[in-house]
């Protein structure tokens, strides 16, 4: 019963958010290309990922949660983006506060083919300039934050991905 009400709640918020959604894509240049705060997190399979290991390719990092309507809205476009640029760009989704089982259930409806890391304690997101979910950062090959996006975007937009690939 509670699960049903929760699903209804999420559906309501998603519909409400969709009515508000907006097709234009934009990335905000980040102030002064600052080095991103390093972290080490495990993914849903228990494998460790350190941010500094991703240098050498542009990197998209998305902070999200399964209960966040705009996060759910943009995740399919992130997965499509991954299939387009995985040879040239790395992608990480950092889930805030949830466990592997929750993400496993979510991924049945929203497949995610790139690594999903678990920030169970919220320690990592606290170190990043995030005010709300979803927030996404784009890092250059040297690990500097170059762009950020507050709220959902259509990440498989070719023009947007060209900007990322050029970093």
């Amino acid at each position, binding site marked *: 019963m*509670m*699960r049903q*009400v*929760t699903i*209804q*709640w999420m559906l*309501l*918020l998603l*519909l*409400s*958010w*969709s*009515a*508000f959604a*907006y097709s*234009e*894509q*934009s*990335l*905000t240049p980040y102030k002064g290309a600052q080095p991103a705060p390093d972290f080490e997190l495990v993914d849903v399979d228990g494998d460790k990922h350190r941010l500094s290991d991703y240098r050498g390719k542009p990197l998209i990092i998305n902070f999200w*949660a399964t*209960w*966040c*309507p*705009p996060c759910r809205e943009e995740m399919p476009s992130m997965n499509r983006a991954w299939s387009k640029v995985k040879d040239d760009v790395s992608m990480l989704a950092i889930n*805030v*506060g949830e466990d592997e089982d929750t993400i496993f259930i979510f991924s049945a409806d929203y497949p995610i083919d790139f690594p999903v890391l678990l920030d*169970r*304690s*919220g320690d990592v*997101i606290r170190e990043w300039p995030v*005010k*709300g*979910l979803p927030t996404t950062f784009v890092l250059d090959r040297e690990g500097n934050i170059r762009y950020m*996006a*507050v*709220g*959902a*975007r259509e990440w498989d937009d070719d023009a947007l991905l060209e900007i990322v690939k050029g970093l």
Partner: protein
Amino acid sequence: MLSRKSCLNSVLIVFTLFPVLAMAAVIRSVDEQTALVSWKINEGDFELQLTQLLPDQTRAFFLARGFSKQIANSIATSCIMQIIGRNRAQQGMPGSIDVDLKLWRMLHNGMERPLKLKQQWDSEWPDDKVSDAARLAFRWATFPTRQNFSSGDFGWGMTSFGLVPGERFDLKVVWSAAGTRKDAWIRGIQCAEER
């Protein structure tokens, strides 16, 4: 899409607010499927939407995040609404929009008062009554107390107005656009009732 259609079909009532207080118009709409009410302001590049949430839905959400029945109920019956804010400016256009909920005011029964923000909720919960995971979910599910929107940015989250279901109030929304402070009143907001 359904909601967009239903919004278009729903009754739109445009209130022209007192020009001394604001130039913004408020659009009130009723979702024909859920019967929940939304209020929207568009002024310049700033767009803000406030939507009712049913107490039962809010209660279920926080129970699922690990809150006790008692605390989930206290949140759910405190007039929780969803806020979505957005900067509609085209990419590359100058001028960010800043929102600070500490500056917002609500008028209820002739008394003006601030909102009940996430920091106040968090401080009311004893350490042994609410888990860290539940606090984390509450923090990120609620609208940021301060948020900066660059062109194309969205922000969303729940906000508590601290009133019982069915109560009515007016809300003074305050924001800054390119450093200039602006405000607008939304009159006659009603907290969703229990169903």
